């Protein structure tokens, strides 16, 4: 029986736009923050797993160590679309779970440009965007939302309510990019990007970083760090299994459902045991799908869940109390570990105004198109 694995230190920077900094510089702040959070130093880390997408071939992890301490440890650079951060965290978890190390660092970092993502590579001589439909991310996730509307009659207003909720949550999160209330009319009347996603229903492209220190239970006890340690009850990663339409319609549902099933089984828990969720609201339409994909409600009831406020802070199962990708921001490679930071902060009872009361177990979810889904279930044991 392998050991339980814990997060002992975790941090994220306030998301924003830092064009004057290098990617390793942005990463270094979260890495040092996570080390400080548990009173350890880079010299204590036995390996580094570094997630970054846009500089995937540029040895970001090694360059991070050139900023904060070149100890010669193994470095693995990870890229897995929007699941990059979660994948780096999972690789770190895998390595300590396997018994190779007992103390490792996972970092996620991204420096984003402004503007639309997606569109795809050009294979012949002319651009395909707006010719063979759209490959932009807002359109792709709009189409996934329209598929849900087709099945269950989900409305534009229900999708828009997700954005109202997450922007409201972010007013209580000082590390979010934005702290602005966006009433329903404001969301629905914002510039239409790709029906039914308006501008306020699209995640914010920001720069950011997040980091976590993972340790075996034996090491946590030896260091006397158990009082704030957060146990990793489950780690799941899936890719897209074959689906009828997946060549033209990336399927974010099947790989999420598969990852959720694996994670719940590994944890010996069900959705009813989860106190808060940070899920991949890259677009407001996506959040609705994932209520059902993660089993927070039955299929077809996601619209009701948002209408009744069950997923708002104070509701039955608060979702994205950080403000989510819609308002906290979405630095692709950092997002997965920022979710770990958010859930850990609640489980430790340190989330301030947005604290989910008596939170003991939380779930994080990210999805990268192409596709990759990462889910982690975290628990804070009674001290």
């Amino acid at each position, binding site marked *: 029986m392998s050991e339980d694995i814990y997060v002992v230190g975790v941090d994220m920077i306030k998301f924003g736009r830092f064009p004057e900094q290098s990617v390793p510089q942005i990463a270094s702040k979260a890495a040092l923050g996570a080390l400080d959070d548990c009173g350890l130093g880079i010299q204590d880390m036995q390996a580094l797993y570094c997630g970054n997408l846009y500089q995937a071939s540029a040895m970001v992890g090694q360059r991070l160590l050139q900023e904060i301490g070149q100890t010669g440890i193994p470095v693995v650079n990870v890229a897995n679309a929007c699941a990059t951060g979660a994948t780096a965290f999972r690789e770190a978890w895998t390595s300590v779970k396997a018994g190779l190390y007992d103390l490792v660092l996972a970092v996620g970092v991204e420096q984003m440009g402004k503007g*639309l993502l997606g*569109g795809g590579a050009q*294979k*012949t*001589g*002319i*651009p*395909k*965007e*707006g*010719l*063979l*439909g*759209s490959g*932009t991310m*807002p*359109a*792709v996730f*709009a*189409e*996934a939302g*329209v*598929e849900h509307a*087709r099945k269950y009659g989900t409305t*534009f207003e229900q999708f828009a309510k997700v954005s109202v909720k997450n922007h409201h949550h972010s007013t209580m999160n000082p590390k979010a990019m934005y702290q602005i209330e966006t009433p329903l009319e404001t969301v629905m009347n914002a*510039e*239409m*990007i*790709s*029906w*039914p*996603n308006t501008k306020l229903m699209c995640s914010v492209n920001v720069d950011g970083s997040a980091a976590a220190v993972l340790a075996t239970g034996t090491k946590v006890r030896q260091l006397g760090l158990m009082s704030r340690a957060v146990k990793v009850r489950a780690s799941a990663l899936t890719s897209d299994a*074959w689906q*009828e*339409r997946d*060549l*033209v*319609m990336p399927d974010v549902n099947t790989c999420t459902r598969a990852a959720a099933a694996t994670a719940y089984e590994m944890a010996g828990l069900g959705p009813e045991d989860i106190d808060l969720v940070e899920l991949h609201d890259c677009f407001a339409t996506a959040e609705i799908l994932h209520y059902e994909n993660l089993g927070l409600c039955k299929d077809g009831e996601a619209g009701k869940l948002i209408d009744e406020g069950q997923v708002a802070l104070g509701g039955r199962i608060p979702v994205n109390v950080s403000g989510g990708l819609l308002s906290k921001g979405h630095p692709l490679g950092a997002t997965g570990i920022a979710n770990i930071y958010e859930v850990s902060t609640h489980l430790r009872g340190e989330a301030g105004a947005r604290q989910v009361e008596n939170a003991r177990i939380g779930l994080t979810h990210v999805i990268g198109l192409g596709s990759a889904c990462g889910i982690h279930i975290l628990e804070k044991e009674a001290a």
Partner: protein
Amino acid sequence: MSEAQIKTNEAQVLPATPFIKIPEDGEPWLEGYKCEECGSIFIGARDVCSKCFARDSMTPIKLANTGKLYAYSIVHRSFPGIEVPYISAIVDLDGGGTVKGNLIGIEPNPKKLEYDMPIKVVFKDALGRKDREGNSYLSYFFQPLD
């Protein structure tokens, strides 16, 4: 200059995407690949079935030029130079195969679009887009079948 010389100097008409097949004469079509083992239909050429893993079971087929609207988005913001709004449509072709493309000949308004509305595939010039050599391209579009 003779007519033949003019012909050879003309830029070619090329398919906007490799699965558009343009015959010497007759109508263009969309090409799919069908797995003889499990019946799955893929868009574009391949050797191995990603559903049932069968090898050497792929046969090229002509996809139907009719189908039904499965899902869509109305794109109001795209990359610079791309004309908006337009309907990005996902169409299930009759007999199998799902293709994404622009739905034209209907107002880009969600109130006008019905799930499963019948669609036909039409082939036209690729919105005037040309490559650096001046070649024109033939693309496919979806239109309501009326």
